[in-house]
């Protein structure tokens, strides 16, 4: 939080035009990530966490549009860059790892060809040199017999190996920022542990900033230093990880933490009643209001701004926050 952030998202608004109307997917999201830092975006389905990351990468599907807000990467505004300029950044400066590596790998190219292609798209190196780097890289992510593995196709790899390949490819050009969207959700827990470990080690070694997107609060606790909690396209709360778990202030965050079974906390879970809202409704007031146990009259009128709660690093958007 001290130095200039490497990536800074300010008041980002993204909407989708659908047959049924406008979907208000992201409604003013703000967060920073510093060099070598790891932050988490946490939220349930429809919270806008994935759309936020796609907007940062400028990879929104056709129906989606950045309506307003800024995405500043090392002093450069990304929302107004041309597609050509953006291509120079994507994969090289800002990289992404998705949940399902099988859908992001090309099934008819060998693993070696795909990694070499990523290198050659950005750097002026020969085929041979690119291949050597690819082999080296597979070795560095713990894939045994890396040289031979280059000749294999994605379907010949297990889920965990494919995700390692994706991480290797995403980090091959030493990007400044890595966005990892549910990178281990499809994996078994022991394989997930391998992948998280790898992600942690490599980014630490290279000083890459991570934006980790997940619904899993355990992964957040392990991997991040700061967490931004999203709901219906809004940031509800943002605080250092330890602080957020110890002293959550937003009723939604408190509800999330009460919904997960935790060691030593026997008895009934305290779930949030109701279901997440319909994003086709234009957001008036706080979207959590219908489910909130602490709602007051103001909650229906206006969305509260994201402001410091106790100290400057703990931000909360709530008219009636939980006392600390």
């Amino acid at each position: 939080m001290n130095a200039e952030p490497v990536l800074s998202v300010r008041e980002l608004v993204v909407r989708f035009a659908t047959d049924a109307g406008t979907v208000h997917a992201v409604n003013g999201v703000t967060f920073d990530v510093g060099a070598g830092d790891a932050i988490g975006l946490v939220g349930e389905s429809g919270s806008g966490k994935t759309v936020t990351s796609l907007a940062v990468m400028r990879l929104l599907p056709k129906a989606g549009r950045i309506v307003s807000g800024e995405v500043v990467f090392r002093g450069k505004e990304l929302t107004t860059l041309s597609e050509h300029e953006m291509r120079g950044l994507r994969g090289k400066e800002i990289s992404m790892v998705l949940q399902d590596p099988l859908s992001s790998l090309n099934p008819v190219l060998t693993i070696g060809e795909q990694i070499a292609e990523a290198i050659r798209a950005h750097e002026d190196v020969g085929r041979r040199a690119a291949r050597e780097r690819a082999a080296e890289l597979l070795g560095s992510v713990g894939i045994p017999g890396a040289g031979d593995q280059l000749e294999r196709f994605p379907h010949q790899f297990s889920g965990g190996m494919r995700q390692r390949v994706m991480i290797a490819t995403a980090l091959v050009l030493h990007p400044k920022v890595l966005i990892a969207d549910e990178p281990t959700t499809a994996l078994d827990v022991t394989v997930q542990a391998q992948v998280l470990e790898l992600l942690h080690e490599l980014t630490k070694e290279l000083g890459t900033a991570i934006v980790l997107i997940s619904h899993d609060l355990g992964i957040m606790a392990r991997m991040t230093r700061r967490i931004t909690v999203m709901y219906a396209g809004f940031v509800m709360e943002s605080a250092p990880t330890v602080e957020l778990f110890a002293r959550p202030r937003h009723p939604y965050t408190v509800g999330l933490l009460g919904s997960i079974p935790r060691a030593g906390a026997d008895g009934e879970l305290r779930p949030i009643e109701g279901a997440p809202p319909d994003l086709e409704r234009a957001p008036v007031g706080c979207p959590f209001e219908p489910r909130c146990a602490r709602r007051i009259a103001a909650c229906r009128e206006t969305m509260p701004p994201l402001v410091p709660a106790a100290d400057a690093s703990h931000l909360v958007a709530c008219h009636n926050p939980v006392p600390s």
Partner: protein
Amino acid sequence: MNARVPLLSIDDLRVHFPITKGVVLRRTVGQVQAVDGVSLELSEGETVGLVGESGSGKTTLGRAVVGLYRPTSGSIAFRGTDLGTIRSEDAKGVRAQLQMVFQDPFASLDPRWPIGASIGEPLRIHGVGNRRERRTRVGELLDVVGLPRRMAGRFPHELSGGQRQRVGLARALALRPALIVADEAVSALDVSVQAQIINLLQRLQREFGLTYLFIAHDLAVVHHISDRVAVMYLGRLVELASGSDLYGKPLHPYTVSLLSANPVPDPAVEARRQRIVLPGDPPNPASPPGGCRFHTRCWLRERLGSPERCASEDPPLRGLASGHTVACHFAEEVADSPVQRHAVGAGD
């Protein structure tokens, strides 16, 4: 087991699936030993959690219990009656006692039927009551799972994930079963909704004296809901203990590594504990390793200087004084070790 007959008794169950090759000349070239010699008893009113990774056989075991798969060998008995040898006219009544709830209720509900018809279908098939009585029962079932009665006329696509899972439960409860196999029943739901369904499952258990076989990969959810927990690896049961024993003092090296790998929502615990990261992926269940099936990935074996016994001798499940049942030659080495303490997040 004294005079009391367990509600469900699984004895040395094997479920193997043939691997076939060829279209015209179809021939069996191997066997996937999905479940390979599992014994487990469930008492009336208890919840037994079943955890394990892909290929562990936990789903196959659950499906065999409700009769979706035929055992290759071994037996499943319900209140002492072997389901494999039961007379077919009695089978329907017994099968009604064993119900299943799936991960994705959307896939198990007919999209063209209003949900009231789906909930009432088991009643119709089993010839329970007349039309009016069945409609009343559907209304009661909706009450029980916390859905408004007017929902009976809605279609599956109009419901949220949590509501669909409530419908799945209502349908499973229609015939007043004794046992429900819940296979990843809350896994697809958002955290806040998941907690609602877990609470509902617990309330239904208290109200109707249900017994649950709760299959899930989420270790925290299983801990929360289960009285006892069974851990499977490659078709075998490797550890069985009460929830507090298994999560507090795991004895099988695989259980230790599962708990160690599982991130817990507590930054302080995550910061201090050392983790065991297992190498590689679980082996293919079509060709499991000889000896102990876990020996190829076992961190304990490595620490003990790779004893030959693990590779050659299949460890039987054995009961220990602590109340654990564990299938490991060297489980005593795990007890009260620093590795065990770190795995459960207790620190040094």
